[in-house]
């Protein structure tokens, strides 16, 4: 299926040049909190992508009927309804992960990515473009989550998705899991490292 160039840009832009986390500064709270292991990070990324794609489509369809003054409330209601559905689905099919994510499933509502993209994109574009924008931003967000989750689980627990990957023999030689990786502040520092690498490759994004 051929996508026009414009739509390709909408879909691929958020993966790097216009990444929601490291460039647009959106959705940082949840990105940091759920990434101490890879599995919850992936589940969170999928949930956000789904909610964002559908919220974008719904708001985009409604964009000409919503009065400007109450648009934030309307957006919140649409997003809250979608998040409730996703939350119930997670409870039914992935109960353990849902427990690990705790309040952060509910907090998808206040995830700034959603409001940011709804305000910036869905209110001004048609449903198909908005759908692609939602998917693209969700994937861009997921990419950072997966990178951070990967690093933290690998060095913090020596596992990936719960499977041991650091060989037993390393521990016998005196290798020790880095306990600092599991603690909250390390997530921030890893994201900072991602930003550093990303911005030294894309010089136009540097500030000042």
């Amino acid at each position: 299926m051929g996508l026009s160039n414009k739509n390709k840009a909408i879909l691929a832009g958020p993966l790097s040049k216009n990444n929601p986390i490291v460039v647009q500064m959106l959705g940082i709270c949840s990105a940091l909190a759920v990434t101490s292991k890879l599995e919850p990070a992936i589940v969170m990324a999928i949930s956000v992508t789904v909610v964002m794609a559908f919220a974008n489509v719904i708001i985009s369809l409604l964009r000409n009927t919503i009065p400007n003054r109450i648009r934030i409330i309307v957006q919140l209601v649409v997003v809250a309804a979608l998040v409730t559905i996703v939350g119930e689905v997670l409870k039914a099919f992935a109960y353990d992960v849902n427990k690990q994510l705790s309040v952060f499933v509910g907090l998808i509502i206040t995830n700034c990515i959603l409001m940011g993209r709804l305000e910036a994109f869905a209110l001004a574009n048609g449903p198909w473009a908005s759908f692609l924008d939602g998917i693209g931003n969700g994937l861009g967000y997921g990419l950072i989550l997966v990178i951070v989750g990967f690093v933290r689980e690998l060095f913090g627990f020596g596992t990936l998705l719960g499977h041991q990957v650091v060989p037993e023999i390393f521990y016998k030689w005196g290798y020790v899991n880095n306990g600092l990786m599991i603690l909250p502040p390390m997530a921030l520092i890893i994201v900072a490292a991602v930003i550093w690498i990303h911005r030294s490759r894309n010089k136009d994004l540097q500030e000042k």
Partner: protein
Amino acid sequence: MEELLSTFVRAIFVDNMVFAYYLGMCSYLAVSKNVSTALGLGIAVTFILVCTLPINYMLENYVLKEGALSWLGPQYSGVNLSFLSLLLFIAIIASFTQLVEMVVERFAPALYSSLGIFLPLIAVNCAILGGSLFMQQKDFAHAGQATVYGLGSGIGWLLAIVGMAAVREKLAYSDIPKPLRGLGITFILTGLMGIGFMCFSGLKI
């Protein structure tokens, strides 16, 4: 009384919204460029937390929870409306934010213009909805404790954003590697402050 004090101190230092749960990071990163604006936003967030937590506590315990409606009559005791909690919480928070926005616009127009878009966006500040959701998890004994928890987490957030703003004001004079300027260095600083705050985690009150 002791219980209230302990909830209060824990909410500020041990379970700090920013450093332990990363809540409210978006406005925290965007508004922490100078101290007076940061202070204004911090006070607004604290105020909204203090107002919305007891209301949401009442909603949770007298309307939403399983069996919460039994005061209406025995036939309602099996009703469980907790799937509506997200919708109702966010509605309460959004209406209070609207109220604060009007008050600030009337009495502190300078602050209003410097906060800009971030004032209405308090409604989607994760720290506030997060406060209500943690309240739901923690099963507080009465509304007073929920209020104290709201006040504590608000002050914790205020402390974090004002501290960060103070550091960033000084940072303007330092020589940072170019790719780290702005967002990157702020992340690292928040991480370091978080490590500092971790020394409170052994605190037993």
